[in-house]
């Protein structure tokens, strides 16, 4: 059942990725050179829907959260390393396989590099854990806990801000 659900979710997601042009090298580089914000709009719309839906269902007790712990330095440093790779590859871990399936054969080398990168991380994890993961280790914290505010209003205000941001993008033709 676990594997079937993963497959089904992936099929739907891959279909959406392809139709919305999220697999394209041009779109990723367009975002990072601030020329084409397709991928940002896609991500933010997903977050708008997700923030409202996930927090609502969690408050109703239908689902539980799986918040990733904050390791401030590792989050930032890992994010920056990711960003450098993103600018070179022009795909992300979830879309590289999809890009390959759409005919972008360079995606094959991206997947290969990703697997070697995962191995390299597994062999260097102890170093990061000893030196970096402890810096700014704040645990599984969220904006509502930081703001001492109830979850749903924070989620709604956050989603509202993202909607305004997207409307502004369209208003200014970005």
């Amino acid at each position, binding site marked *: 059942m676990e594997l079937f659900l993963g497959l089904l979710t992936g099929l739907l997601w891959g279909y959406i990725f392809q139709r919305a042009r999220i697999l394209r090298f041009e779109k990723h580089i367009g975002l990072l050179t601030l020329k084409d914000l397709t991928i940002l709009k896609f991500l933010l719309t997903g*977050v708008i829907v997700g923030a409202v839906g996930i927090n609502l269902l969690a408050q109703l007790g239908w689902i539980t959260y799986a918040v990733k712990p904050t*390791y401030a330095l590792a989050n930032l440093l890992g994010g920056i*390393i*990711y960003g450098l790779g*993103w600018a070179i590859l022009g795909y992300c871990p979830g879309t590289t396989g999809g890009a390959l399936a759409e005919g972008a054969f360079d995606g094959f080398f991206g997947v290969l*590099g990703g697997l070697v990168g*995962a191995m390299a991380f597994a*062999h260097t994890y102890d170093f990061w854990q000893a030196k970096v993961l402890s810096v700014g280790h704040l645990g599984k914290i969220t904006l509502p806990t930081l703001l001492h505010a109830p979850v749903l209003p924070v989620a709604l205000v956050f989603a509202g801000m993202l909607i305004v941001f997207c409307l502004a993008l369209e208003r200014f033709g970005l």
Partner: protein
Amino acid sequence: MRDGWSPYLGGFLTGLLLIGSVLATQKLLGKPHYLGTSTAYVRVAGLVEKAFSPKSASLSYYQKYIPRVDWKVMLVFVGVPVGALIAALKNGEFRGHLVPERWRESFGPNPVLRALAAFVGGFLIVYGARLAGGCPSGHGLSGMSQLSLSGFITVAGFFIGGIPLALILYRRRR
């Protein structure tokens, strides 16, 4: 539709997919599976490494993420590519190429250069994502939807690393 879907439609559907996936996995598997992709690389890398050297299973990172075919491996390595392939074929958009057009504009048509760059980029995105604890799906979509601080820090890192490098790399057009 020749130009594909609006990113807002794609993002909206992805948000619904996130909610649906969390609900379904919570009910059917007893544990919510949020969309994320980079740990799938760790599981597959671990499986490959174990085939060559059984000793590798003792690495602490492979103890944390036991090498096996799980929900995410099906999602990333089977579901997304097959879904993307179906979408591309159905819409007559499968177009085999090794060097993306936008890459060619800045770096020329050399396929070896592009393959090497894709490998290095792939290495960095997965290495960085594992250090940060997630990629644009895990930290971006799922993390920010849960209003997780780690998601916001990591996504900031993606752009801090990616935008300056992309502006430098793709400044030149032939």
